């Protein structure tokens, strides 16, 4: 026995893929990449603005909810729930893109999307 399950899709199977299918796959790939890049830009903008905001507004240190300066709160707590929100939103959208791809490819001649 040789290696288990070669990772490469067999070429003959691929050869049967029509130009249409390949085109749709490329479109899906681009849509996924656009979604990911958008998420990174939005996320990077939010998180990336935080150090800059704290740097430019040193006065925030005088605001002390529960006795702890606001900058410490801002770094220690809110990023984590924001990560989860981004993750959930992205996961839903990505799955949605795949679902519509499946519909297009799966629906026999009904390719007119």
């Amino acid at each position, binding site marked *: 026995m040789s290696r*288990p399950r070669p990772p490469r899709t067999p070429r003959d199977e691929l050869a049967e*893929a029509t130009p249409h299918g390949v085109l749709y796959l490329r479109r899906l790939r681009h849509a996924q990449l656009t979604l990911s890049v958008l998420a990174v830009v939005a996320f990077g903008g939010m998180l*990336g603005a935080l150090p800059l905001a704290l740097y430019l507004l040193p006065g925030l240190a005088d605001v002390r909810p529960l*006795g702890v300066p606001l900058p410490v709160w801002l770094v220690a707590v809110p990023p*984590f729930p924001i990560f989860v929100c981004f993750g959930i939103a992205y996961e839903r959208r990505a799955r949605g893109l795949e679902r519509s791809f499946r519909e297009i490819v799966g629906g026999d001649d009904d390719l007119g999307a």
Partner: protein
Amino acid sequence: MIAVVAITAVTLGALGLGAYGVRFARTTSDLFVASRTVTPWFNAAAISGEYLSAASFLGIAGLEMKLGASALWLPVGFTAGYLALLLFVAAPLRRLGSYTIPDFAEARLGGRPVRLATAVLVLAIGGLYLVPQLKGAGLTVREVTGAPYWVGIVVVGLVVALNVASGGMRGITYVQAYQYWVKTFAIVLPACILLIVLGGLPERAALFGRELPAAPEGGARIELAQPARVTFPRAATVTVDGVAVHGQAGETVTLPAGDLFVPEGTTMPVAEGVRAQEGREWSRPVASGGGTASPLFVYSLLVATFLGTMGLPHILARFYTNPDGVAARQTTVRVLGLLGIFYLFPAVYGLLGRVLVPELYLTGETDSVVLRLPEAAWPGLGGELLGALVAAGAVAAFMSTASGLLVSIAGTSAYDVWPGRSVRGRVNRFRVAAVAGMAAPAALAFVARGLDISVLVGWAFALAASTFCPLLLLGIWWTRLTLAGAAAGMVAGAAAATGAIVVGLASDPDGASFAEGPVDALLAQPAAVSVPLAFAVMVAVSLRTRRPREMQAAMLALHLPDGLGPSALR
């Protein structure tokens, strides 16, 4: 004594679960990828358990105490790395159906040399990471129980090697999921109880005001085993074995070995090289001026951790265990939540430690603040019980990360470097590689006892970020990436990361002026420069070489949604 019981209990729990997992570990697929049947919640706990190493459990609070609130960017970056993984890597990598990173490299780029080269890199990164875990285990067990340094290394090494060799990925998944909950419990519960017992944060002037940390009520007694070089931030008098030693403000003095006493309210002298900071300065996450709070350092740290996490081979190996691409994404979202819960708490230990165990500034051992804090904050049985709990959590942290690294080392050795011909041969070689893969780093950790090897983790991280991160991102999303481009980019990234760290070490061997200027910041965090460089070289060389053929096959495997075979495109 209670600590010994707690550590033993956690270790036996890991062994027991490992033994339970053995019953399911028979095939190659079991050993390497847990037969790809791990459900998202289970896998998320296992991934988080593996990821939260000693650097997270002990290091963040220690760095926070030493450097200030700027250390709080670390957990943010560590978690952000998983977002990058989720957005760009998780689902496609799983869909490709490979077993290891070298597998991915060969499938995408073709050629056995590529497999071997990436395999060597995986082994190097895994080894560099494993040594500090074992060293940390030795130091922690010695600190908590008084046992010799080698005991912790041998115990953790044996348990991990046994679990990995017998249960492989399948067995380790149970153990790591269990260890996540042990660690989270061990960091959350003491933090909450201590805050309740103390009635909130005590003595805020040293934390956020214009005060330096001072000896607590009753003074601080420290046993100096050997003479210590300390700097007095303010003029003060301390006694060693009853003999007074006076230091002027800013003066650095050598204290003789003996019983040191710092009277109550006296500003704590700090170990040479540690910067004494007033509370106001200490509590700034970002500030003007040099140091780790400078915006440049913060941004380069965030970039490095954001991109670096996806390059860690032991983290990627866990993604292969998901049933499909959608599950891989769901797992990652859960990881973001589980890490978030854990990372809310190390900050509490840093804050309390600054007030309650300021003598760690004098000894320079701020890394042990998590272990020391419970008993200092709450003398008596309560503190001792909580201390035992955090000690057990720390040992769980060493074990789970070491297990993940060892699975990745053994998997790569037995699958890519030295593949067996038969199922039996592969399984046996995996087991041999697991034992050998532990023996070498354990020996190194034993030899490297006196060296500060924290630089190894930084090197491994930078190496992973500057090689595997661009390889994965471009390999998955860019059809034009060629073998030559990938190879050139990885060589350039590895060379730049290694070079920066060597130069950083040579120019500043003690790490005393750690990240004082912008150049030091980049030498300590080279990923912010070496990763873009690796990307640039990969793209440039790929564009100058011939467009690769047959990209469709790999792209199909990477991006086709689950459940659709290539025939669905007909």
